[in-house]
């Protein structure tokens, strides 16, 4: 237990960098100890509630281990109107035994709204997504905050990380096919003051630009962030000259033409997969029920000795014995 406590303290706030072994080794030792105790100790294995409790503890440790081995975590940013792809995942971490059906996960990101109160306090997020239904069509769902999108056991949680994405096309002078892409601008409204980015189309030079947004943002009163009600002017520097583009407009640049197609948005999700979740909850619940049953039995069968008569008797005995000891001290002195 001491080792486990030390392991837990070491993992504090830094689970990613701390070796998992500081937890695994003490947990394993504890599990072995627990198994030994369950088998050998009739005070545990003869009493139902207590047995359930200790088996439950063992179950939790085992499930946590299985969970770590088969889990997957990651992040993904999806542009409104586009479909989730496995390739767009970043910061992916998964256990060696992870074998979920991520390839079967399909959904299309729709628009989203985020409520803000005065002083820019973020409130509820509503993110609209479409998932394939059984008839070959699409079904719309709303997720956000505490409500993840749950597909094939994978959970997608909306995050505070979301923003705007101008959709840009590059029409190259040399006749290559038109290249269109969405550029994710920094998180909004967190980085309202630096909505700048750059894009290097194939065969072209790096294009630096920034976005002037009209979103209704204010820190004085409540407002709602909704990409559908926002407009954005793209500001590009061409040969040292500032050029402003509205959606649909283009500008000639060395090597080709840049066209600002439209303003879109992106939502950042956190991905989490752990097949043991439900089992973990069930086991933990049963563990506490076991503990509860055990204590209930204990409390109802073992008297405390606190009813009036017993108390009066005890008090008398206690007093007699103090009297005796007082008498003794007197004698001794």
């Amino acid at each position, binding site marked *: 237990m001491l080792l*486990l406590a030390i392991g*837990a303290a070491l993992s504090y706030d830094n689970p990613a960098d701390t070796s998992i072994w500081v937890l695994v080794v003490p947990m394993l030792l504890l599990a072995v100890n627990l198994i030994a105790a369950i088998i050998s100790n009739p005070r545990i294995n003869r009493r139902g509630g207590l047995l359930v409790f200790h088996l439950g503890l063992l179950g939790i440790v085992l499930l946590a281990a299985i969970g770590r081995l088969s889990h997957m975590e990651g992040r993904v940013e999806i542009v409104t109107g586009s479909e989730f792809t496995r390739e767009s995942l970043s910061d992916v971490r998964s256990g060696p035994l992870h074998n979920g059906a991520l390839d079967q996960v399909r959904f299309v990101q729709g628009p989203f709204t985020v409520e803000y109160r005065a002083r820019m306090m*973020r409130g509820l997020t509503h993110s609209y997504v479409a998932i394939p239904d059984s008839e070959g069509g699409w079904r719309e769902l709303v997720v956000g905050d505490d409500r993840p999108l749950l597909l094939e056991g994978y959970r997608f949680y909306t995050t505070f990380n979301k923003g705007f994405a101008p959709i840009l096309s590059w029409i190259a002078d040399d006749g290559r096919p038109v290249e269109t892409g969405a550029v994710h601008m920094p998180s909004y409204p967190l980085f309202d003051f630096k909505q700048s980015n750059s894009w290097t189309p194939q065969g072209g030079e790096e294009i630096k630009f920034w976005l002037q947004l009209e979103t209704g943002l204010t820190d004085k009163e409540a407002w709602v962030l909704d990409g559908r009600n926002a407009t954005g002017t793209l500001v590009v520097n061409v040969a040292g000259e500032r050029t402003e583009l509205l959606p649909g407009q283009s500008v000639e640049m060395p090597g080709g033409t840049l066209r600002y197609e439209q303003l879109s948005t992106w939502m950042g999700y956190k991905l989490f997969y752990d097949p043991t979740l439900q089992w973990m909850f069930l086991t933990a*619940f049963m563990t506490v029920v076991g503990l509860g049953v055990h*204590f209930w039995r204990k409390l109802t069968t073992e008297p*405390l000795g606190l009813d009036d008569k017993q108390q009066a008797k005890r008090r008398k005995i206690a007093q007699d014995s103090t009297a005796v000891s007082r008498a003794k001290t007197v004698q001794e002195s």
Partner: protein
Amino acid sequence: MTELPWLYAGLLAYALATVVAMVGIGRLSSAVAATAPSLAAAGISESQRNNERLVLALMTAGVVLLVVTLADRWVRIGHGPFVNLFELLISQLFSLGLVYTIAYWRIPVLRTTAVVVLPLMWVLGVWVLALEPSDSVFPPTYHNPWLWAHVGFGKFFLAFSLIGTGLAGVILLRGRPFFRRLFSHLPNDVILDKLAWRFMLLALVFDSLMLIAGAVWAQDAWGRYWAWDALETSSFLNWLLLGAAIHARTTYKVPIRLGAILIISVFVFAFVTYFGTPFYSEAAHKGVI
């Protein structure tokens, strides 16, 4: 801040209850000393009964006034007392007071523990007075039914540890001659110790439930059920400590006084977890997430 007068009145009621309880115990012990053993054996005198009734009434008044405080604030700012330390402390003062008042009423042996428990509540009371009573903002992740389970179980855990600590405190204080006389009307240490550990067993059940509810909520709110943040680590260590203490007591039959020290350590650890951890952790539980 229309709730402040109610808060002051509630704290005042608790303070009066503390004083009355102390005076009562003092009087009782001198009565026992003067007329022992006949009166003590016959039971508690009428004046002591009145004193206990007064303590009970004052504590009930305190609880009711704190309910009004919380309700008034809730209506004014539109959400419950779950966010900043000012409202968390008032909410704990209310729930600890409620559970303790019921225990005080139903389990007469516990009444003497008022001299330990009520001053401990006063640590929270003085603290709350020192805080800025600012309004809080309800985070988006708090729109979740697990909030009630998590917070509710946590409150029972702390309240049962507090009662256990009251008994443990009485057992330890009895080691000094002054208090031995003061507490001479109580049953012996063996019984107090047994009762204290029963509350600690209950505390363990509720601590486990709080951790489970917290983990389920964390999965919903933050997309992971456990990640060793400050409060998670601290509350896990707290749970281990309580489990270890219970094992020490049942398996190794630790002496009563050492057992009492263990109970108090669990409470102190819980206190630091509840009210200390939010200070050095920017993550989780603190602020809007």
